[in-house]
């Protein structure tokens, strides 16, 4: 009988110790901070508390028929080969004195067809003064249309103004809707992101 009691006592003690250990560990886990490894890198960690403001915005959107002049515009950056997300090299806007107009087609898709219906998006970009810092930014455009939805991307850098004051660059961007059938556009969305450098995104 005595050995049996001793055995039970041992079992109780082990059980009690396990429970104390588990409760203690649980309490520690609930209050401690765990840093995951590897740390997740973010291209948006910040030097601007206000997010993407004062860099670029959309002024207007219009439905167009793409002309040779539009499809022959410079490409807004270069999409990284094989990448389908936001990844590419930027094209810097030309230095501007006060106010300029510059024209671009998208980086992805990189080719556009004259005669297709397209979207003309006008962006207003603030170009820092010549001693400032050029900022890279990307944009992803989604057009919902009766002829099919289109997503396009581009990569630009603000560049620097020619003088000691900033300038305003009006960027005309032409997006191919990939159709020769007159579309009915129901929605246009543009997402801008600031890139980690003036040369590449993200």
């Amino acid at each position: 009988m005595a050995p049996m009691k001793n055995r039970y006592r041992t079992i109780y003690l082990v059980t009690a110790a396990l429970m104390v250990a588990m409760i203690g560990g649980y309490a520690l886990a609930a209050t401690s901070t765990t840093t995951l490894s590897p740390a997740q890198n973010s291209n948006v960690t910040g030097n601007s508390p206000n997010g993407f403001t004062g860099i670029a915005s959309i002024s207007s959107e219009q439905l167009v028929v793409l002309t040779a002049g539009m499809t022959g515009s410079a490409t807004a950056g270069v999409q990284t080969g094989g990448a389908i997300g936001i990844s590419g090299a930027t094209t810097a806007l030309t230095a501007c004195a006060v106010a300029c107009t510059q024209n671009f087609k998208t980086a992805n898709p990189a080719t556009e067809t004259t005669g297709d219906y397209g979207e003309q998006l006008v962006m207003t970009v603030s170009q820092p003064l010549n001693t400032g810092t050029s900022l890279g930014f990307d944009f992803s455009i989604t057009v919902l249309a009766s002829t099919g939805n289109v997503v396009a991307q581009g990569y630009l850098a603000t560049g620097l103004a020619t003088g000691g004051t900033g300038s305003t660059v009006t960027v005309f961007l032409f997006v191919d809707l990939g159709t020769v059938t007159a579309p009915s556009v129901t929605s246009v969305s543009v997402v801008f992101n600031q890139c980690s450098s003036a040369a590449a995104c993200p």
Partner: protein
Amino acid sequence: MRILRGRWHGLALALMVLLIAVPSLASGATSVRALAPSHYLVIHPALAPAPPVTIGASVRVYRGVAPGYPAGGVQGTSPGLEGTTVVLASCAAACTDNYRPASAPALPGGHYLERVTFTVVQPRHAGPATGFDLEVAVLLSTGWVVGKGYFSTGVATGATTATLTLRLFIDLGTAIPTITKVEVTVNPCGSTTTCP
């Protein structure tokens, strides 16, 4: 005694199960990591209401004599839709106006032209007028010919709206053209003086 011991065993077992199950359920929550605020901007440009313009028919015409049609505005520096508008003349009830594309040279005699007709509702005298642009792209066997126009509806002479038949003439050259396709867009402008 045995019953009492069995209850203690059952209680201890239930507690152990809870201690194992609850942390494992919560483990998903402890792996969340807060990231720094993103520098992004999402914009949904508001689609402006359609201008009071209806696209009508297009037809190829031959002009033996040079028509003296004025330019439909002034094209900006962009190859896109960017320009300064011309104000349509005030009309009492129904009028017809003829224009060549913005900044296009005067239409010469002896050329084939593509004539696209639009119907514009001109607001009553109290307004307000609205700005709009037109783009006509004609695909010939030899390639594309494009004309753009920038207009303000202007206002009617009286207290009721007027209906304008607006014709835009695109120069197709002297050779008999083979037209494959005609594409037309109409957009509202941001003001009555400039587009977009």
